[in-house]
């Protein structure tokens, strides 16, 4: 091929481009949305159907479209009326009566009433086998625990907290439970239990699907992908997977109308890409700001940081199935040997506070008691405890930390691990590190009980102490490796208590007991950050990430 031919080809290429331009021209230009805000999401939602998701990006969208019987006061974990205006529990705690808001319609114009509530609860209770696994219906499994027609090996009615639903006229509904539980009321504030239009659920075949020979469910309906119909301030406009999901203000909304006509969720997986998109004005806000980016945002006069209240805990776990962690003195020695104050002050950019108990301070059940053992950093005390345990110093331990991850409670796990190892080595331990990528490798190793001492943490799903304490210590858990009937009973009693004041005391007592028993050493509660353009107003960060865009305004 000669230069002339190359030149000819280049000329043809230019002509081709011009031809393409010419072909594209002559038509009409695209329309643009106005009165819209673009929010940078970390990913696409899985599906816009609350009971079938548990990830933050799905719930962010679901929360704008669906509403539950109860909600949370913005910015808090305090339960407030939403689709129910009031509720009461029977004396035996097994029947909960909800008075429903009247005059509410779904965005398809059909009425919200007691039949709709029962239809939804019965839908969840009757999910088909492929939808019964924890990966799909995590919150139903966690809160209600069983299904009417369980697939082989799945929990059935005998394990279910839910027994049935009764309508009492159009605007009163009763939920019948199989046992006493108070945490379920807090759990009902989860968007997962938002009430969907029964008409739409049937019309768009919400639960229809096929199961391939690998056991994977493939929905054939379009409810969760094209027609999610709820009572919320917004409704789904379009969803182009990988590109954007748009929601528009719901004209039938019963409450104050949304200030912005359209919210666009744009999936941007990379933290740095989200920051640059905010700086360039392509998005107006995003969540999960990396700690190292906070200063960059704060130094830009067009941007601002909003703080989400601390609703998490970072902890050093100890697996009692791996000696010598079965010895309380050794666990206490580790607690005294962790320089928690230094780690929190050095690596959390002022956004962390040293944790003295497992629950975050804003949650009911947080003790704050003087009786709480504190375990200040004390190498001498640590060594003394190890010697009392009959061990020869230094005591070898395997310390696990994750890589390829940044969590609000653990922005840089390696630095935390190195600092903790240094303080433990001062305190009579000999640390051997183990690390692996966070998901699923590290989590798998920790959860199956392979890690002896490890970094981990938890962000609450809903505003109830059971979501912290019972999830971790309410039953045998291989990552902690202990069987402590007293603790298991304390927590199940606390969860079942319907008198809130007594329930709070029960959890406070459990908190103190946990810190004496020391299955782990909590070390930090942090405030995650969101970033916005300065002219975005009305966004109220929630501790459990349930944030409505209806109150948000934006002047471009």
């Amino acid at each position: 091929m000669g230069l002339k031919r190359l030149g000819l080809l280049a000329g043809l290429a230019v002509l081709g481009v011009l031809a393409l331009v010419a072909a594209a021209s002559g038509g009409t230009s695209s329309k643009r949305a106005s009165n819209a805000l673009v929010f940078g999401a970390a990913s696409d939602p899985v599906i816009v159907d609350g009971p079938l998701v548990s990830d933050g990006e799905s719930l962010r969208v679901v929360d704008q479209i669906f509403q539950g019987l109860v909600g949370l006061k913005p910015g808090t974990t305090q339960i407030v009326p939403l689709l129910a205006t009031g509720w009461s529990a029977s004396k035996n705690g097994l029947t909960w009566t909800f008075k429903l808001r009247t005059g509410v319609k779904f965005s398809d114009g059909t009425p919200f009433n007691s039949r709709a509530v029962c239809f939804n609860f019965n839908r969840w209770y009757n999910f088909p086998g492929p939808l019964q696994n924890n990966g799909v219906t995590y919150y139903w499994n966690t809160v209600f625990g069983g299904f009417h027609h369980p697939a082989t090996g799945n929990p059935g009615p005998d394990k279910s907290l839910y027994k049935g639903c009764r309508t009492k006229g159009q605007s009163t509904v009763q939920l019948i439970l199989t046992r006493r539980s108070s945490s379920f009321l807090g759990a009902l504030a989860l968007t997962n239990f938002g009430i969907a239009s029964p008409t739409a659920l049937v019309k768009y075949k919400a639960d229809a699907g096929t199961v391939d020979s690998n056991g994977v469910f493939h929905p054939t309906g379009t409810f969760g992908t094209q027609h999610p119909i709820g009572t919320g301030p917004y409704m789904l406009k379009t969803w182009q997977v990988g590109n954007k999901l748009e929601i528009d203000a719901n004209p039938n909304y019963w409450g104050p109308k949304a200030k912005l006509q359209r919210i666009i969720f744009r999936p941007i997986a990379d933290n740095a890409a989200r920051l640059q998109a905010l700086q360039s004005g392509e998005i107006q806000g995003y969540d999960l700001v990396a700690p190292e980016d906070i200063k960059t945002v704060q130094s830009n006069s067009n941007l601002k940081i909003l703080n989400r209240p601390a609703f998490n805990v970072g902890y050093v776990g100890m697996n009692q199935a791996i000696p010598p962690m079965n010895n309380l003195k050794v666990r206490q020695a580790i607690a005294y040997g962790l320089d928690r104050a230094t780690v929190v002050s050095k690596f959390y950019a002022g956004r962390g506070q040293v944790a003295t108990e497992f629950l975050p301070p804003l949650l009911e059940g947080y003790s704050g008691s003087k009786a709480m053992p504190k375990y200040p950093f004390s190498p001498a005390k640590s060594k003394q405890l190890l010697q009392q345990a009959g061990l020869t110093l230094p005591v070898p331990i395997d310390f696990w930390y994750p890589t390829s991850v940044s969590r609000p409670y653990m922005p840089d796990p390696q630095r935390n691990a190195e600092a903790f190892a240094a303080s433990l080595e001062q305190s009579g331990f000999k640390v051997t590190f183990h690390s692996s990528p966070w998901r699923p490798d590290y989590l798998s190793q920790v959860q199956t009980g392979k890690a002896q001492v490890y970094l981990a943490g938890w962000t609450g799903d809903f505003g109830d102490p059971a979501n912290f304490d019972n999830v971790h210590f309410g039953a045998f858990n291989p990552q902690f490796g202990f069987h402590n009937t007293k603790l298991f009973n304390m927590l199940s009693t606390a969860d079942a208590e319907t008198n809130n004041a007594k329930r709070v005391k029960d959890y406070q007592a459990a908190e103190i007991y946990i810190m004496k028993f020391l299955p782990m050493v909590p070390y930090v509660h942090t405030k995650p950050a969101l970033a916005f353009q300065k002219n975005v107003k009305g966004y109220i960060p929630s501790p459990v990430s349930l944030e409505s865009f209806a109150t948000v305004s934006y002047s471009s």
Partner: protein
Amino acid sequence: MLRFTVRRLLLLLPILLGVSLLVFVWIRLLPGGPAQGLLGERATPQSIAQINRQFGLDRPLYIQYWRYLVETVGHLNLGTSVKTFRPVTEELQQRFPATVELAFGAMIFAVTFGIPLGFLAAKKYGSAFDHGSLLASLIGISIPIFFLGLILKYIFSVRLHWLPSIGREDVLAIRSHPTNFYLLDAIINRDPEAFWDTIRHLILPAIALGSIPLAIIARITRASVLDVQNEDYVRTARAKGLPPHAVDSRHVLRNAMLPISTIVGLQTGLLLSGAVLTETVFAWPGVGSWLKDAIFDRDYPVLQGGILFLAVVFVVVNLVVDISYAILNPRIRLS
């Protein structure tokens, strides 16, 4: 050539069988599984067992593989994502066009600048230009794509506001995408604004992704031209008194094109297999970032189906390269 093409296409079958087996075994050797990928911190032994039972992951490996083959070959079904419930073929229809647009954008950039750069460097062998081009191509190969991407975005998006930093189109635009090839869609819809908008979104990722192929093409071109221009037939052509540009065009560049076309083909095949870093940095919804997420999620159907599809693409692209040899150089006979 027809027999050659058919034979190569038939060879796809054992290749795909091998790839499917390798991928099947490889992803199961990784720690964790779909249950941990789905549940993260929330996994419990019970929930892991529950999910493994549902997906048949508690069965012996050979049974799992057989069921996978039956589903893929018997039902022509690449599977459904365990995380998103979306069929793999549907995701590929959405994402592969994005990858193709990006890959071709990057290759156009790389070829347009790489071949002239390499050719001129060879012609000015030993000069400052030659050394400069060598240095530039070294930097092009060495600089991490994600870093280059961030720098480009910082300059052209954040500071200058000339070009967008993420995605394939203006997110506020209301457009239809019948083919998911956005340039083609703009033409179908006769929408010039959409066309330019798509080009503007393509520029930075194409430059970032094309930087390495550009450097490789420039170096190969330089080496190839240096080799060829010392051949006897070139010396003879010069001795016969042919003008320098005629020697270069008819004898040097034409003969130097074979290794260049090989590398262009290979690079195109690689880029079509997905560009994880570029797609991640530019929030480009292509195949690479999708498969990366699937690895973290241990989404077995997506990994198995997606990689199988990319293997087909890679083999086909290489077949096209082989066929192009014969067109570029009639002395080569395909057999």
